[in-house]
C-alpha cells in the first residue's frame, strides 16, 4: 500500500510537470518590431523613407523587397514546429488557417527553432492572399499582388505548433506591417499659365495635412507636343478706326456684320488648352498600377500637401523658351511614396510679359542695379548715433542750466 501511494504521488508530480511544461515551455519573441530591416531583391539593406518608413508601398513591392525579422525562441523539441502565418485577422484560431473559413496563409517556411534566429520574408508573399491550404506561398514572381491595396495592416503571426491543424502551443508573437500600394487620385483643376520663359502650373489644393494623404506633386513637361487644339479669334481690321478684335464665332463679326472697309481675319492666339503628347501618355507598370513618364520629362516638383502652385523654368536642364509650346501633366505623390496616375496634359506657350521694371527702364528711368551714386545705405544708419550724440550733449547742457 505504501508503495502504491509512492508510485501514485510520483506519477502525479510527473503529470503536473508534463502539463506545466507543455503549457509554457515554447515561446517566441520578435525583437525588431519597431524597425524591421528591409532588404532589396539583391539582399542589400534598403534605406527607408523619412515618412511612414515601416510601411510597404507599391515601389517596395514592385522591387521585390523582403523584410528581415529577428526573433528569440525557446522550447524547441522534435515534436514541435515554429511557423509564421500572414493575414489581416487573428491567425491563431485553427479556423483562420484551415477549412472554408481560412483567412491566413504561410508566407515563409518553418523557422529554425534555435534560440535566436532571423527570417527573411518576401513582401509579395505577405501580400499574396491565398486562403486555401497550408503550403508556403511563393509570389516573388507575381508583381500583380502589389496593385491597388488601400491602406491596411497585414500581420505576421509567429506560433509554435504540435501537429497540423491544431491550436498554437506556448506563447506566440505578432508583427504588424502597414501596407498602401494604391496611389493618390489624379489632381483636379490643372491650369498652366504662360509667363516669361516660364510656366505657372496650378491645381486644386488637396487640403490640410492629415485630411488628404498627398505629400507632393510631380510635374512633367514635353517640349514637343504632338498636337494642340489652337485657340482662334476673329480680327476685324477697319481702314478708318484701326483694329478691333472679337471672339471667334461672334455673330457681330460675320460677313453681314462687318462695315464696309473692314476685313475679318482669323488669327491663332497663344495660350493653353488641352493637347496631347506621346511622352506624357499614362503608362502601366509591371503589376498593372499606373506609371509615370521617363524622369527626363520631370520638370518640377512640389513637396507637402497644401501647395497648389509650382513654377516650371527648366525642362531636362534647358531653360524654357518664349513662343514655344509645351505640354504639361501632373501627378501627385502620397506620404507612402506612391505616385498617382498622370493627368491629362495641358499645353501652354511662354511669352514675354509686361514688367514694371522693364517698363520703367524703357520709359527712360535711370535708377536701379544697386549702382546709384551717392550716399551708401549705411549713411542713414550712421546718422542715428550722430543724432543721439547731439541729443545727449544738448540734454547735458540743459541739465546744467537747470542746476
Amino acid at each position, binding site marked *: 500500500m505504501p508503495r502504491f501511494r509512492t508510485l501514485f504521488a510520483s506519477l502525479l508530480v510527473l503529470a503536473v510537470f508534463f502539463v506545466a511544461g507543455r503549457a509554457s515551455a515554447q515561446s517566441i519573441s520578435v525583437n525588431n518590431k519597431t524597425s524591421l530591416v528591409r532588404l532589396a531583391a539583391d539582399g542589400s539593406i534598403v534605406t527607408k523613407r523619412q515618412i511612414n518608413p515601416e510601411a510597404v508601398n507599391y515601389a517596395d513591392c514592385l522591387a521585390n523587397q523582403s523584410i528581415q525579422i529577428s526573433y528569440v525562441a525557446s522550447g524547441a523539441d522534435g515534436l514541435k514546429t515554429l511557423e509564421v502565418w500572414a493575414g489581416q485577422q487573428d491567425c491563431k484560431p485553427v479556423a483562420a488557417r484551415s477549412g472554408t473559413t481560412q483567412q491566413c496563409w504561410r508566407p515563409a517556411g518553418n523557422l529554425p527553432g534555435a534560440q535566436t534566429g532571423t527570417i527573411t520574408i518576401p513582401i509579395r508573399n505577405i501580400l499574396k492572399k491565398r486562403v486555401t491550404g497550408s503550403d508556403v506561398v511563393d509570389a516573388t514572381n507575381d508583381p500583380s499582388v502589389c496593385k491597388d491595396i488601400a491602406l491596411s495592416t497585414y500581420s505576421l503571426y509567429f506560433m509554435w505548433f504540435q501537429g497540423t491543424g491544431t491550436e498554437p502551443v506556448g506563447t506566440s508573437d505578432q508583427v504588424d506591417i502597414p501596407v498602401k500600394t494604391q496611389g493618390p487620385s489624379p489632381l483636379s483643376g490643372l491650369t*498652366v*499659365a*504662360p*509667363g*516669361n*520663359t*516660364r*510656366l*505657372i502650373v496650378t491645381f486644386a489644393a488637396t487640403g490640410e495635412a492629415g485630411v488628404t494623404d498627398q505629400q507632393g506633386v510631380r510635374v512633367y513637361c514635353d517640349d514637343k507636343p504632338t498636337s494642340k487644339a489652337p485657340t482662334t479669334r476673329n480680327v476685324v481690321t477697319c481702314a478708318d478706326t484701326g483694329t478691333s478684335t472679337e471672339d471667334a464665332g461672334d455673330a457681330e463679326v460675320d460677313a453681314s456684320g462687318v462695315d464696309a472697309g473692314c476685313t475679318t481675319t482669323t488669327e491663332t*492666339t*497663344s*495660350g493653353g488648352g488641352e493637347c496631347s503628347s506621346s511622352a506624357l501618355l499614362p503608362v502601366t507598370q509591371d503589376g498593372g498600377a499606373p506609371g509615370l513618364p521617363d524622369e527626363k520629362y520631370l520638370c518640377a516638383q512640389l513637396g507637402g500637401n497644401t501647395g497648389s502652385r509650382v*513654377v516650371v*523654368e527648366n525642362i531636362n536642364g534647358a531653360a524654357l523658351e518664349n*513662343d514655344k509650346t509645351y505640354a504639361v501633366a501632373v501627378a501627385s505623390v502620397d506620404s507612402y511614396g506612391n505616385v498617382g496616375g498622370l493627368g491629362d496634359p495641358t499645353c501652354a506657350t511662354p*511669352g*514675354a*510679359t*509686361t*514688367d*514694371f*521694371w*522693364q*517698363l*520703367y*527702364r*524703357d*520709359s*527712360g*528711368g*535711370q*535708377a*536701379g*542695379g*544697386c*549702382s*546709384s*551714386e*551717392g*550716399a551708401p*545705405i549705411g*549713411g*542713414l544708419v550712421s*546718422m*542715428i548715433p550722430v*543724432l*543721439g550724440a*547731439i*541729443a*545727449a550733449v*544738448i*540734454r547735458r547742457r*540743459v541739465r546744467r542750466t*537747470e542746476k
Partner: protein
Amino acid sequence: MSRVSKNTVAALAGALLVGCFANEARADGLTSRKTRYASPQHFALEVRFSPYTPQIDEEPGLTSKPYETTFGTMPRVMFAGEFDWQAIRIPHLGTLGPGVGLGYTNMSETARLIRDNTPSGDETSLDIWQTFAVAVLRADVLWRDFGVPFVPYVKGGLGLGLWRSGNTGGTAEANTPTGKVSGKGYSFGSHVALGLAFALDFLDRGASVNIDQAVGINNTYFYFEYYFSNLNGIGQSNALRVGANTWAMGLTFEF
C-alpha cells in the same frame, strides 16, 4: 471788419475750448497728480498706417507713367513704426530727441503677355522699405500744464527708401542697351512730418494712472500727421522716387 470779427470769434472760441479743458483738468487735479506720481518718461513708440503712392512717375525725363500703367492709381497701405528717444525736456514746451522709423509696403499686379495683351501667369511687383532718422519735437505743454489733450509735433530728418522690383522669377532685370539692370536699390531723401496727437488718457484718467503704474506707459495718443517723404535721391544721380507725401494715423505710447 468782418474778417476781424471772424478772427476774434475764432480766437474766443479757441480760448474757451482751452479754458474748458484746463478748468476740467484743474477741477479734479488729476493731471497734476498724475505728473507728480508719473513714472519716468524717456521714449515714445508709434505704430501707424498710411495710404501710399510712390512718386516714381514724377521722375524727370520719363516718357510715360510706368508706375500708374502697371499698378494703377489706387494707393497701397504703408505700415510703419517709429521709436523716439525723448532726450530733452524743454520746460513749458515739450520734448525733443532723435527718432528712427521703419515702414513697408508692397504692390503687385498680374503681368500681361505682350503678344496679345492677355493675363499671364507672371506677377510684377514692387516692395518698398521706408526708413528715416528724424529729430522730433513734441509740444506737450498743453496737455501737461493745462490739461488740454492735444499735442502738436513736428519731425524732420533724413529718409532712406530701400526698394526691389520683382516678378515670378525673383528680382526683376531690365534689358537695356548696356546690359541687364537689376531692379533693386535705395533712394536717399528728406523726411518731414507735422502732426497732432490726442491724448487718450483724457478719456479715462484713472485707467491712465493705472497703466502707468502697471507697465510704465505715461501717455497714449491717437495721432494724425501729414508727412513729406521726399526720397528723390539727395546726393544721388539716379534714384527711384519711392517717397510719398501723404497722411498717416496711428497710436503713440510714451514710456
